[in-house]
């Protein structure tokens, strides 16, 4: 039972994220770096929020259980807000690096003359310089050297994936390693579906982070602040729904509904359309017929 549960939950939780990684991120070194940096930013946000929670815990009465639970809920919401703040900060960093390069690149985009960088198109602040150089350094190893909206959009999606993977890893891996050992789930009367629900929630959150990354970018680029507000409030909603656990009927289906909704919204907002979906299918079919 243990090995089966381990592999089952691992594949449920990390399968799509792994597939996304292999098919879209692993080919381009730039994207791998953006992914890891996204994971780092999420980690920073978690660190700060747990610091705040820890201080609150230490300052309060540890015997009072309802207070502890209340503080934990406060910790959850504070952490969500902080994650969104760090998502915004990471977006600004990516944008700055990409922008600086786009400003100095040639029309064909790929050959960046260093001389152009040198002569005057940069602001003289060294922080800006290092950001531009960061962007350049990252882009110079990448497959497509075009510094445009598309690459920023993809970068934000990858950043969202980084957030999601890190969040999933932190939620899931300890539980996975516990599931390898002997034990009976729910022997004290808790739900016996603990592992599988955790895996499903982790999957949902990973995908949600990816979609939110894309939507956040959209909102910031087009200055549609309502989109950003929607992303933040939906994140708070999802965290709030998870507070209903172990009433799984109340938390899991709504979360998956939201995930689906976000997926569709992100698809359409990043430029997809029914037409392109159709074209994809017919092209596949055509390729299938011709081969």
């Amino acid at each position: 039972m243990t090995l089966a549960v381990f592999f089952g939950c691992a594949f449920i939780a990390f399968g799509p994220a792994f597939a996304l990684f292999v098919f879209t991120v692993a080919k381009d070194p730039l994207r791998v770096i953006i992914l890891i940096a996204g994971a780092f930013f999420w980690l920073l946000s978690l660190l700060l929020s747990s610091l705040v929670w820890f201080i609150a815990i230490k300052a309060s009465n540890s015997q009072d259980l309802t207070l502890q639970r209340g503080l934990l809920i406060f910790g959850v919401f504070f952490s969500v807000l902080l994650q969104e703040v760090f998502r915004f900060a990471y977006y600004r960093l990516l944008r700055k690096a990409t922008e600086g390069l786009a400003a100095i690149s040639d029309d064909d985009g790929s050959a960046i003359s260093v001389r152009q960088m040198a002569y005057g198109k940069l602001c003289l602040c060294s922080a800006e310089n290092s950001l531009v150089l960061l962007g350049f350094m990252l882009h110079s190893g990448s497959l497509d050297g075009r510094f445009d909206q598309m690459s920023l959009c993809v970068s934000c999606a990858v950043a969202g994936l980084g957030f999601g993977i890190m969040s999933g890893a932190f939620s899931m891996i300890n539980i996975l390693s516990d599931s390898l050992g002997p034990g009976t789930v729910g022997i004290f009367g808790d739900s016996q579906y603990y592992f599988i629900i955790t895996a499903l929630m982790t999957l949902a959150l990973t995908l949600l982070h990816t979609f939110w990354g894309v939507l956040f970018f959209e909102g910031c680029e087009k200055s549609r602040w309502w989109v950003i507000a929607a992303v933040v409030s939906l994140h708070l909603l999802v965290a709030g729904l998870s507070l209903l656990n172990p009433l799984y009927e109340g938390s899991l289906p709504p979360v998956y509904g939201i995930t689906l909704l976000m997926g569709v919204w992100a698809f359409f907002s990043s430029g997809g359309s029914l037409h392109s979906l159709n074209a994809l299918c017919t092209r596949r079919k055509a390729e299938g017929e011709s081969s």
Partner: protein
Amino acid sequence: VFDLSQHFLSVPPCLRSNDGTEVNRHTETTPSRNEVELNGQPPTARPPQVLTDSEEDEDEELTLKYGAKHVIMLFVPVTLCMVVVVATIKSVSFYTQKDGQQLIYTPFREDTETVGQRALNSMLNAFIMIGVILVMTLVLVVLYKYRCYKVIQAWLFFSNLLLLFFFSLIYLGEVFKTYNVAMDYFTLAVIIWNFGVVGMICIHWKGPLRLQQAYLIMISALMALVFIKYLPEWTAWLILAAISVYDLLAVLCPKGPLRILVETAQERNETIFPALIYSSTVVWLFNMADSAETGNNSSHPVPQQENQVAMAPTAQPEDDGGFTPAWVNQQQHQLGPMQSSEDSRREIQELPSARPPPVEDDEERGVKLGLGDFIFYSMLVGKASATASGDWNTTIACFVAILIGLCLTLLLLAIFKKALPALPISITFGLVFYFATDNLVRPFMDQLAVHQFYI
């Protein structure tokens, strides 16, 4: 109890940019001193140094082509080494058992009555260890200055021998014990013999690139495991912190031993310590096309013997096989920033690597990293997985922190283009994240997992 004295020749890591890189490849000039100074200065009111030095766009683009690809070329082996160490720590309990044995360089024991005594002992231990490292570096610098290359080579050879045969024998024995595999001595002897001999050949002479890289990763992992086992708790953390500081000082101070080493090697136009480096590319293919241009000395490449674990000389074999020292020097002149970190030759260099289409200005560069970096990074992550009660979360956090530190270090190198220490940023991030995750994040995540709240 085995004597590890041969292995503690440590010179802390340093990241170095090759000051001679701005020389145009078609003119064999030694790097001029004013270019060196120019490169050495941090960017002030002008755009980054990397941009304004060389005359030709071709050279400029060469130096800037070093980018994301090279970061990934370093991520992969560092990750592999960490994975090996963490997997071993988690499965083989030998490396987390404290038998009471300690290295001779850390004589003070930590099982004392009071906390103050323990702190004092661990500080003394760290002090002694750093002192040993400093002395070894100085010995190395002296040997190098007086051209006692044979001594260094022999030293290195013997250390590698010990590592490849003896340590791997112990490792294999412990793995067999863990998985309860019965093994006779004859088979074991054949396995270890083959492993060791092939390793010595690959590392000291020639061999397939992947095999060489695999051996380097394995010996770095073995050394990191030895440190994790034989260094007591507080001493290990203090040593990690102290060696980052030492690295910073040794590389950036004008009288630092590492800086002296680097400058001496540059004056002599030799490769600095070609041994003990992990190389990501095969360099000899390119050599054939370019060797006509150089044609100089036959100075023997000095195997660099720094670090703790005398790792075998790696990418540059002493005899030919395509890598003549002259060729390597020439490559260094053509290259972009070269980073070398001390500590067993932690160098991150860039060497043009071979590509089937003729290379004009679109060479693919390789990256080199000294083995000491591997060892300390893996040691940090291994200790995190061994001792942290937060278990996997702490390990993952340290892993991400170290990778980001490596990325930032490479970025700084691209900006400053001079000798920079390789360890400080990564180790600092790693330490901060270890203690923060273990003490702050772990209780938070545990509580969330108990209630199944998700953030």
